[in-house]
Each structure stands twice: as structure tokens, then as C-alpha cells.
């Protein structure tokens, strides 16, 4: 019944989205735009991987069809406006399974005072940071689920927002922001969070600087800076200092068979750590744009922590395959899955992207590389966008995860992922 209701809501929104709406009356304005995307995703699932079936992530089908609408609606009346960005999604697989979902990235009301003070409340996806490969200062979005089948630049954009209330104050070349995201049982599990932000433009030295203070489950302070150097180069850095809590670590409590492991509560391992990105982007005369970033993830495992983690996973995997105390081993694997966040497990990463727009006048091509410098595993992701005309684009992208099965990118449940789709803009 719920699926039927969600499918009906999707169809209704699809119909609404197709209307060429751009209305305006006295003090009233309505604007709707977006795109409908039909996408086929193929996951080259591994038969044998360490975080194995039965422990969570292996139930993914090989083929998935995703039909979704990205609809952006803004309704303004005098000093108030409503902003909605929704993604009704219909997933289906060849086996006949289908699932509808109605994802809301934004649904908030904002009041404007004197064109320079804004107060807002509702659900909002706020994205902080200046880097591309990782955003250490994106405090409010750091626990959001990452969809690896999306193109790299879409992963932190198309995500559900937080329930929050905020205030933005604009001054000449400066903006002050205060945001409060409360704990809402059933809807927002995180504890109460507060984000304070001051953004400045240092006009003469062509530099933006943003200072952030975050209070929440992992308190921290951040700084993001970007500057233009000459005609073709943009340099940037963003960093966050976090205190009190880091990533949970695996420790062996007893070596007696069956071994006993425990996840050390990060709260007991109090201290501070730094997350940092330093990078730049350069554009050549022929429009080719390259981005290079070094990412330091202070929360990531060092060699010793990683060895403990991977020994734990291997021990659980091998013994579960053998059928030895499989209940305990399954619980170990479930625990391992719960602390595994690919792309953030280790400390040193390299991110690079090369983009060539306008190939033959119609194609935009990109190649993304993310390398784990600690274990040499990596992700390669080419993508192409072919503009059929002003309203229709064809997309194709792939992800190749390279590395042995006991290093980070080699641990991902599928070896490769390929997707192709068509988007219609309105």
C-alpha cells in the first residue's frame, strides 16, 4: 500500500514537473524547475568479499532501474518564501521487486528582513566547504549516507537535509550564520547540534575565508579559504579540528578461541584530531580543467588500528564461512559493517579530477581518481554527459575499485559499477 502511495506521489510530481510553471503576480512568485532521470545501474558484485553476505550490505541486486525526479520549487510571497527540493524515486529490479521513496532534500520556509537578514526553519541540506574530494567543514552533512552509484559531484548534493532553524545576517563582504538542528526522536537521531559561521570576502587579496564552530556529537572548529592566483588557478584549503570523539577502534580482548573483540568507544579515546584538504584547480586555454587535492583524515586508522580492524574482519569472515560460532561471527561482521565508511577509513588520500567540457560541442567528459595513499587502493571513475539538445542529456559513468580485498577500496562489495541514464530538464 505504501509503495502504491509513493508511486502515486511520484507520478503526481512528475506531472507537476512537466508543466512549464513560472508564475508571477503581485508580491507572489512561483518557480519550478528540475529534471527527470531514468537510470540503469549495474553492480559487478563480488562473490567473495570480507564484509560478507549476511552481515548487511550484500543484498544489493546486480541490476537496478532508478526513475527519479529532482524537483525544485520556490514559492515567494512578499518577504516569505518556501523552498522545496524533492526526489521522489522509484527503484526496480529484474526480479520484479520495486520500491518507492520520497526523499526530501529541502522543505523550509524563510523570512527576509530588509533584504539582508534571513530567518528560516524546516528541512534543509546545507553544504559547507570549498573542496571537491572531501569537505571536513561540512559538519551538518557528515553523517549522511553516500550513494556510490551517483557521479562524484552529485554525492554530497543529492542527500536528505537536516531539520533545523537558522539565521543569516549579511553585511558588506561578510555573512554571519547561526543554525540549530535539534534532536527529533524518530526523525533526527543526532543529538542537538549548533553551527556558527562567519564568512568573509577579502576583496583585495581575492580570497574567501569562512570560520565555523560546531557543537554536536563531535564538536569542532573549521576554516575554509579559497583564493584566485592569476588568470587560471584557484587554490583552496579547508580544515576542521575535532575534539572528544574519533572513529571507533577494534581491540582484541581475548585471544582464546573463539576470540573476543570489542569496539572501543570513541568517547573513551578522548583527544583532538585534524581533518584537512589542500588543493587547487587549473584551467587550460583549451578549457580542460584539472583538480588536485591532498586529503588528510585525522580520524582515520593508522597502520596499527587498520591491522586490528582487518584482522578482526578476516577472523570473522573465515570462521563464519567455516560455520564456526557463526552467530558470534555474524555479529562481528555486522559490527564491522557499522563502522566501515569507505573513503574515510585511512588517513592520507589523493583526489584528482580532469574535466573536458564541450568535446565536439556536445560532450562533457570527466575522470575522477581517488587514491588511498596508505594502502594504495584506489577508485577510478570516468563519466560522460552527452547533450542531445537543450532539454535532454544522456549520461554514462563507471566506477572501478582497484585493490586487494583486504585494503580499503578493494573491500567494497562490487568490483565495478556502471550506470547509464537519460535526463530531461524542465
Amino acid at each position, binding site marked *: 500500500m505504501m509503495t502504491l502511495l509513493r508511486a502515486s506521489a511520484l507520478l503526481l510530481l512528475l506531472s507537476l514537473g512537466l508543466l512549464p510553471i513560472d508564475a508571477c503576480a503581485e508580491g507572489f*512568485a512561483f*518557480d519550478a*524547475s528540475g*529534471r527527470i532521470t531514468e537510470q540503469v545501474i549495474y553492480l559487478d558484485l563480488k562473490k567473495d568479499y570480507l564484509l560478507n553476505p549476511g552481515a548487511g550490505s550484500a543484498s544489493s541486486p546486480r541490476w537496478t532501474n532508478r526513475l527519479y525526479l*529532482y524537483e*525544485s520549487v*520556490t514559492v*515567494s510571497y512578499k518577504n516569505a*518564501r518556501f*523552498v522545496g527540493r524533492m526526489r521522489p524515486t522509484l527503484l526496480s529490479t529484474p526480479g520484479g521487486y520495486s520500491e518507492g521513496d520520497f526523499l526530501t532534500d529541502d522543505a523550509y520556509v524563510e523570512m527576509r528582513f530588509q*533584504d*539582508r537578514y*534571513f530567518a528560516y526553519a524546516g528541512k534543509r*541540506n*546545507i*553544504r*559547507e*566547504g*570549498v573542496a571537491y574530494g572531501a569537505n571536513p567543514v561540512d559538519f551538518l552533512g557528515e553523517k549522511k549516507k553516500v550513494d556510490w552509484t551517483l557521479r562524484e*559531484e*552529485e554525492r554530497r*548534493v543529492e542527500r536528505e537535509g537536516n531539520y533545523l532553524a537558522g539565521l*543569516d545576517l*549579511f553585511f*558588506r*563582504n561578510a*555573512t554571519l550564520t547561526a543554525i540549530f538542528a535539534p534532536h527529533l526522536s524518530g526523525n533526527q537521531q543526532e543529538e542537538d547540534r549548533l553551527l556558527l559561521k562567519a*564568512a568573509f*570576502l577579502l*576583496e583585495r587579496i*581575492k580570497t*574567501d575565508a569562512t570560520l565555523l564552530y560546531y557543537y554536536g556529537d563531535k564538536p569542532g572548529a573549521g576554516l575554509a579559504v*579559497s*583564493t*584566485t592566483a*592569476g*588568470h*587560471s*588557478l*584557484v587554490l*583552496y584549503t579547508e580544515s576542521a579540528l575535532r575534539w572528544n570523539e574519533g572513529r571507533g577502534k577494534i581491540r582484541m580482548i581475548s585471544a582464546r578461541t573463539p576470540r573476543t573483540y570489542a569496539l572501543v568507544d570513541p568517547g573513551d579515546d578522548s583527544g583532538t584530531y585534524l581533518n584537512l584538504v589542500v588543493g587547487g*584547480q*587549473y*584551467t*587550460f*586555454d583549451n*578549457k580542460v*580543467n584539472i583538480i588536485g587535492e591532498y586529503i588528510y583524515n585525522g580520524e582515520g586508522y593508522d597502520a596499527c588500528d587498520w591491522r586490528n580492524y582487518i584482522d578482526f574482519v578476516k577472523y570473522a569472515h573465515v570462521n563464519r564461512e567455516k560455520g564456526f560460532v557463526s552467530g558470534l561471527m555474524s555479529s562481528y561482521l555486522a559490527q564491522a559493517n557499522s563502522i566501515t565508511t569507505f573513503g574515510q577509513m585511512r588517513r592520507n588520500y589523493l583526489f584528482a579530477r580532469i574535466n573536458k567540457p564541450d568535446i*565536439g*560541442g*556536445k560532450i562533457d567528459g570527466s575522470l575522477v581518481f581517488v587514491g588511498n595513499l596508505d594502502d594504495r587502493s584506489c577508485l577510478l571513475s570516468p563519466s560522460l554527459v552527452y*547533450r542531445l539538445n*537543450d*532539454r535532454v*542529456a544522456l549520461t554514462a559513468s563507471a566506477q572501478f575499485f582497484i585493490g586487494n580485498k583486504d585494503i580499503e577500496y578493494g573491500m567494497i562489495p562490487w568490483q565495478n559499477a556502471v550506470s547509464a541514464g537519460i535526463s530531461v*530538464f*524542465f
Partner: protein
Amino acid sequence: MKTMLLTLIAVLFCIGGAFAQSNQGILEKIDNIRAPGKTFTFNLKVTVHTPEKEQVTELFVRTKDSKKSLVFYKSPASEKGKIMLMVDDNMWIYMPGNRRPIRISPQQQILGRVSNADVARVVFNLDYRVDSVKNGRIDNKDALSISLKARTAGAAYSSIDVWAEKETYRLMKADFFALSGSLLKTTHYRGYETILDAERPTILEVRDSMKKDEYTVMEYSNMKVEETPETHFQSTYMERLSSR
């Protein structure tokens, strides 16, 4: 003798300064024909012609104090909602799908051979200084050939050779050069119409020096003197402008 020498040097400085001022004055007269003031708005239609296709992009531009510009993308549908902000040499792009303004470099071109600066900046004198002025003829008319050099490394072009009618200072043609000295493109200024009490060019035809079969046409319309609030010219404000 010493006094005479000092006087001579002072006079030479004054004459040199006057010449420099006069040359810069010529550039300002040329700029005044293209821009009706320091604060105004206009619509811009950019058509990129290639052998394979014709791509049309419609923009709405707000400028303030000559050095601040906001460029709103109105069409095509896939670009709608995108905004570019330029404050001096600082540039940002806001794409609704990206959810944050991104600092970009002047080199990041957007439409065919048209650069960000070509769209956002209507005048030359903010980014370029006059290097020399010569008399010449172009299209059977007496013209001034003005050589411009970039004031900063952030300028879109290293140098520009501008041709303007000698009597009216109406722009006729401009050659844009890279740092290497190679010609990047040539722009012809056409379609002069009376707009806000002056004859102004409404059509710019941009020809690529490398790709001879490609050209871009920029058509200006609906030019108005209109104020835009100061706060709008901030990267942090861009998200709020996207739907207006």
C-alpha cells in the same frame, strides 16, 4: 642651469601625464558608449555557432559600480538557475545542483569563445590600461587603433588591440591576445542603436582565431539603469538569488 633642467623635467612629466590621461580618456569615451553608466541591467543572448550545431543561452546581467556583476542563466533548461558573480577579479559560480558557490578563475570559459569576463564586464578600463594610440583606417573609415595591456595577472587577456571610429569613438573591432602573444579571438561590434540617449552596439560577433568555422554572437537588449542592492553581490547570497 640647474633650475632650467628641473623645470624642463617637470614640464616633460606634465606633458607625459597629460598624454597618458588623454589616452585613458579615449578609453573611457569608448567604454561610455558600451555602458550607460556604472549601474545598470541588460539581457544578453549568446549564440554559439559550430558546424554541428547552434547553441543559444539567454542571460540576464546586473552590474553595479562597474566592477560588480551578476549573471543569471535563464535558458536552456539544463542551465537555468545558474548564476555567476564577479567582484573585481573575484569570480564565483553557483549551480543549483551544486548547492554552494564555487570560486572560479577568469580562464574558465562558459560559452563558446566567450569568457566569463566578456559577459560580466562591459568596460575595458577596469582591467586594462592604454599602452598606445595610433591613427589608422578600417572599413574605409578613419579609426583609432588602441593597444591595451592587462592591469593585473587576473585579467582575462594579456592584451587587446581595439579599433574605434575616430570621430565618434564607436567600437568597431577588438583583437584579444594571450600571454604568449598569440591571437585568441576577434570581436566585431555591430548593430548600433540608440539606447539610453546614446548609440550603443547591440551585437558582438566573436570569431575564434584557431577554429575558423566557429563563431559566437552576443546580442544585448533591454538595457536599463537599475539599482541592485549591495548585499546581492556576495557569494553567500547567491543561493537566494537563484529563484528570483
